[in-house]
């Protein structure tokens, strides 16, 4: 899925997978921070969005 | 007679686009259809091909059309704004067969107790510049379906003189109005209209509608529908198929209700909430489409719904051919 979305032009940073168990709270926080940083770097998403006319 | 020279066509379209949305046949990659000229005037006009794959019905019945927007907050909701597609429209280059389909759509949308306001708004202020058809294609059988291809009922009829310039023949007051708007580009020339080629395909459907009335349970329908795969291609490219679906598009506390094309070939077209489906199987849906084309519409409005343009014959992936279907239906014995 990740490679397919990249193929369609969605920046890879926008679609990330992580396997975090319920007890790994810290890892969850780190992954979230990482994702936010990455997506901020890429900027607001204009793709696959309905433009309201 | 007035003539629109080939090098002035673009200019004429730009003039008309001043006060109206002008729909012209254009080629998008290898799909041709009727698109708004002002959207991309640089694209070549598809006037040198017989007809467009996508029929011009999207001019009066867009594939997706917003009906009304609403807001729904908590317990109360109300309609905010109802779409009202006013504004002048001109269709340039439509042929006699598609025009006859437009008449069938008028019957469906504007008669029998209710008028469809959205359709009416688009249809009423539509000026029609029709193209007389001198060079029919192999799959055309429009004359057997009562289409006058050389003299269609339009505001202006244009005749292709062979060198991409068109004889311009206004027919109605609206046509005269268009002519006066374009008198800067039209030139006066005496002109010889080309010789009309004969139609290769003729088919006689007299009495077919009555015969079909007694053939609902006939086993021929199994055989005819066996090759169909129930996709929606034939209904979407057909100029006279008009079935639509009403859907809602909700974004939080606001949204809009829109309508979009639908096809009787889809299983969920008649699937009811409780699970009952009067046309559950492919044969029933296939039969319903052809009966609607050749019998039901005729019984209800007195006109056939098939106008012989041949698009479904050309574009069906599995080679279902309405001409073969008609021949088979005529040839089959009805015992009851």
């Amino acid at each position, binding site marked *: 899925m990740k490679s397919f979305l990249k193929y369609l032009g969605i920046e890879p940073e926008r679609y990330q997978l992580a396997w975090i168990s319920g007890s790994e709270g810290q890892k969850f926080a780190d992954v979230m921070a990482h994702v936010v940083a990455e997506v901020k770097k890429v900027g607001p998403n204009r793709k696959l969005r309905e433009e309201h006319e | 007679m007035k003539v629109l020279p080939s090098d002035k066509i673009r200019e004429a379209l730009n003039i008309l686009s001043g006060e109206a949305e002008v729909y012209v046949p254009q080629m998008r990659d290898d799909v041709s259809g009727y698109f708004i000229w002002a959207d991309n005037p640089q694209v070549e006009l598809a006037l040198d091909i017989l007809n467009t794959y996508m029929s011009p019905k999207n001019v009066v019945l867009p594939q997706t059309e917003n009906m009304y927007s609403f807001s729904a907050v908590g317990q109360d*909701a109300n309609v905010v704004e109802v779409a009202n597609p006013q504004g002048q429209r001109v269709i340039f280059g439509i042929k006699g067969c598609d025009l006859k389909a437009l008449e069938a759509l008028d019957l469906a949308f504007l008669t029998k107790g209710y008028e469809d306001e959205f359709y009416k708004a688009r249809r009423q202020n539509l000026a029609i510049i029709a193209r007389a058809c001198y060079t029919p294609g192999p799959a055309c059988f429009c004359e057997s379906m009562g289409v006058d291809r050389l003299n269609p009922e339009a505001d202006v009829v244009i005749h292709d003189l062979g060198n991409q310039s068109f004889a311009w023949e206004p027919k109605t007051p609206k046509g005269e109005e268009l002519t006066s708007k374009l008198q800067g580009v039209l030139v006066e020339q005496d002109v010889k209209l080309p010789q009309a080629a004969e139609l290769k395909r003729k088919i006689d459907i007299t009495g077919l509608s009555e015969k079909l009335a007694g053939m609902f349970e006939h086993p021929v329908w199994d055989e005819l529908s066996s090759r169909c795969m129930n996709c929606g291609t034939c209904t979407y490219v057909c100029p006279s198929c008009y079935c639509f679906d009403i859907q*809602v598009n909700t974004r939080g506390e606001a949204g809009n209700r829109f309508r979009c094309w639908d096809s009787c070939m889809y299983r969920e077209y008649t699937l009811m909430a409780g699970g009952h489906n009067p046309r559950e199987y492919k044969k029933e849906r296939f039969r319903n489409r052809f009966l609607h084309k050749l019998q039901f519409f005729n019984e209800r409005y007195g006109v056939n719904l098939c106008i012989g343009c041949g698009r479904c014959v050309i574009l069906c992936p599995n080679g279902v051919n309405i001409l073969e279907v008609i021949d088979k239906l005529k040839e089959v014995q009805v015992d009851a």
Partner: protein
Amino acid sequence: MHDHGECNCKDHGQTNPLVPTMVKVLKIVEETPDVKTFYVAGENGIPFKVMPGQLAMVSQLPIGEGMFSVSWQADDHLQFAIKRVGLLTEALHDIEVGQTLGVRGPYGNGFPVEACKGKDMLFIGGGIGLAPLRSFIKYCFKYRQDYGKIKIIYGARSYDDLCFKQELFEEWPQVPDCEVFVTIDNPEEKWNGHVGFVPAYLEEINPSPQGTIAVTCGPPIMIKFVLQSLEKMGYSDEQVITTLEMRMKCGIGKCGRCNIGSEFICLDGPVFDLTQLKKLPPEW
């Protein structure tokens, strides 16, 4: 094309027949575990007049629209009995009093109330099929003197599934010259009435076709068997009326899906008598 009786479906609030007018839900009555009756009205009373058997499109704007028979048109409100089967009906069953809904209509030809005057009436209903019949039954009670003897045969899967129990067991049997026969599919302890399917029960009661009009509505399979039983019992085609159910989207005979042959259920129907039905292809 059937005339619309005295109803004036042209002068409702909206000129565009596809755009709903807003109404508020005044009262919700729980008929059975999956059927509720909704009492709705606009600011100035009923949004439009409705004849028995006519339909209206009820819409919860963000969810969707659905066509329902108007179970009764009182002076100040409309009643819809709605069974929970799909996306919209599930949402409708979660709403409370005060909710705003969209309504448009009335659609369809409705029952031939004039033509049935002076006749004995036989109503045969199954499950939620009683909802459209109820509009005609209450109309007959309202103008009781215009109609002869009334028999109501009604069945459902179980006791809980019987709709309008209060009217069925208390009110309607008190109406002069009106008999009510109720059955359920399989026996239950707290039920000592008749047990069995409606078509079988109908043949058991065997009401004479003399001067009678039979009106039936229910699941398609029940209608088909009831029609056979009525024919066996000597009812001529003109004496048998049914109201049918199809998927409907526009309600004004345009979108093309509710057709039986060349007739549209939402416009030329939903009420047909057997002579008309027999002319149409058996596809409903």
